[in-house]
């Protein structure tokens, strides 16, 4: 028509429009049939926070760090008589540990800050309620979520050895051998430098002497720990 302007051949746009729709029709639809088919969540999805009650020492770090103050903790002290000890020890007992998911903004700071791994992310997300008050999960409910916590991602073969391994081998080697033991855990013997020997090693090859694990979800997602 008259307003074709710079678009060359008349009718080209019409044919292109038809081609686009036809091409889309032959492709697979991207619709996820959610209630019927469970969604495939990415690793480390933040669904709900689980509480491992035994690990909690009532240090209150999580409650204090929480940006919107949605963690409520009550506790009392108990005396524990340890046989053979000079006097009774004191222990904090958790009375109440509530997270109000109506307020929670899923920042994960409480989980980051917990020194004893009492809080964990789980990918469960189907806990919508018709009453907003029911979104306050008490410690029993938070404890039930523990069943859904996924196992931690596999260790990155190219990364630093884990702290547990490093300290265990340091202890085993005795005092004074710390530095060498640290280097021996997973490193090829040639490296004594502090930084991982990225330049000497092709990225595809695993480090010599380390267990070969496939580059799966966990290893791809875990960044190598920075050197202290």
């Amino acid at each position: 028509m008259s307003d074709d302007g710079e678009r060359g051949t008349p009718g080209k746009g019409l044919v292109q429009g038809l081609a686009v729709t036809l091409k889309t029709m032959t492709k697979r639809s991207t619709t996820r049939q959610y209630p019927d088919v469970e969604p495939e969540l990415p690793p480390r999805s933040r669904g709900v926070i689980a509480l491992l009650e035994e690990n909690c020492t009532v240090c209150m770090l999580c409650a204090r760090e929480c940006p919107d103050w949605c963690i409520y903790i009550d506790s009392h002290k108990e005396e524990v008589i340890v046989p053979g000890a000079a006097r009774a020890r004191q222990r904090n007992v958790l009375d109440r540990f509530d997270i109000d998911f109506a307020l929670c903004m899923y920042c994960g700071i409480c989980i980051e800050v917990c020194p004893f791994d009492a809080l964990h992310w789980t990918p469960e997300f189907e806990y919508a309620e018709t009453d907003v008050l029911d979104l306050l999960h008490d410690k029993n409910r938070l404890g039930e979520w523990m069943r859904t916590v996924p196992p931690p991602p596999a260790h990155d073969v190219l990364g630093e050895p884990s702290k547990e391994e490093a300290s265990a081998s340091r202890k085993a080697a005795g005092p004074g051998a710390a530095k060498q033991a640290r280097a021996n855990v997973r490193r090829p013997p040639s490296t004594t430098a502090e930084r991982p020997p990225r330049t000497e090693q092709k990225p595809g090859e695993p480090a010599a002497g380390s267990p070969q694990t496939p580059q799966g979800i966990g290893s791809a997602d875990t960044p190598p720990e920075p050197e202290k």
Partner: protein
Amino acid sequence: MPVWLELLIRVVAVVVGFLVLPLLVGQTEHKVMAHMQGRLGPMYAGAYHGWAQLVADGVKFVQKEDITPRDADRGVFRLAPIVALFPYLLILLAIPLGPGSLVAQPLDIGLFFVLAVLGVGVLAVLMSAWASGNKYSLLGGLRGAAQLLGYELPLVLAAASVAMAAGTLSLPGIVEAWKPWWLLWQAPAAVIFFVAGLAEIRRPPFDMPIADSELVFGYLTEYTGLRFAFFLLAEYVGIIVIAALTTVLFLGGWHGPFAAQLGWLWTLVKIFALSFVIIWFRVAYPRLREDQLQRLCWLILVPVALAQLILTAAVKLAM
């Protein structure tokens, strides 16, 4: 077989087709449109890929309240859906499905009858628009009237071309006379007929009278429940009618391998292929503006249709 029984069978067959084919087209539209947009479309009704979606829709429409606006012209308002629907039923009577007597009512002036009855659709649009007592309806109705009157002309001219080529106005006669090379000879007329037919049934991209983004729903704004369902049904029967008329006039109806036994199948296959194209157009093209709509009709379709008439006459005289 007594005459009344034969008559009964033919009429019942047409009514069944009238009720089933639009549902098939509607379901196809749901699914095709969804997949062209990267969706899945209805998946629940009827358990298997939502095959019963339109049945469920029908049940829903029956349950809805039947509202007649206070300012509406009640009689006309209530009559309009029937006027929209009934002409298409009459047209289906005259469309030949296969060779021999596989047509509900063979008419010597079938083409004339079909085009005349198709024009009644304008009346339904105007009736519903005026009677609704709603400014959006009125605007939609006037747009519809301008569009339908305009596109009636290329539609009739294109049909006249093929009637001239076949030398008959009888629809079975035209299919009988059809030769494969007519596909080329009558190609412009076929395109014009199809496009004008799309405008005639107010399908996107020619849905300016409805234009839900600017006119609410045009002349359908005030309709609810069953009356609205009748209008929707009329739209889908309209798809069948336009596809069937294009098939019969320009694509050779039942012609194809084993036409003697499978003629009806060829007609149906062609009708559904064209219905698919109509749905495809709806997904691919945006709505034409009112001035573009009239420009396309008067500056392109009508001159080309007239040129096609001259070409047809010239070839006919030369032969």
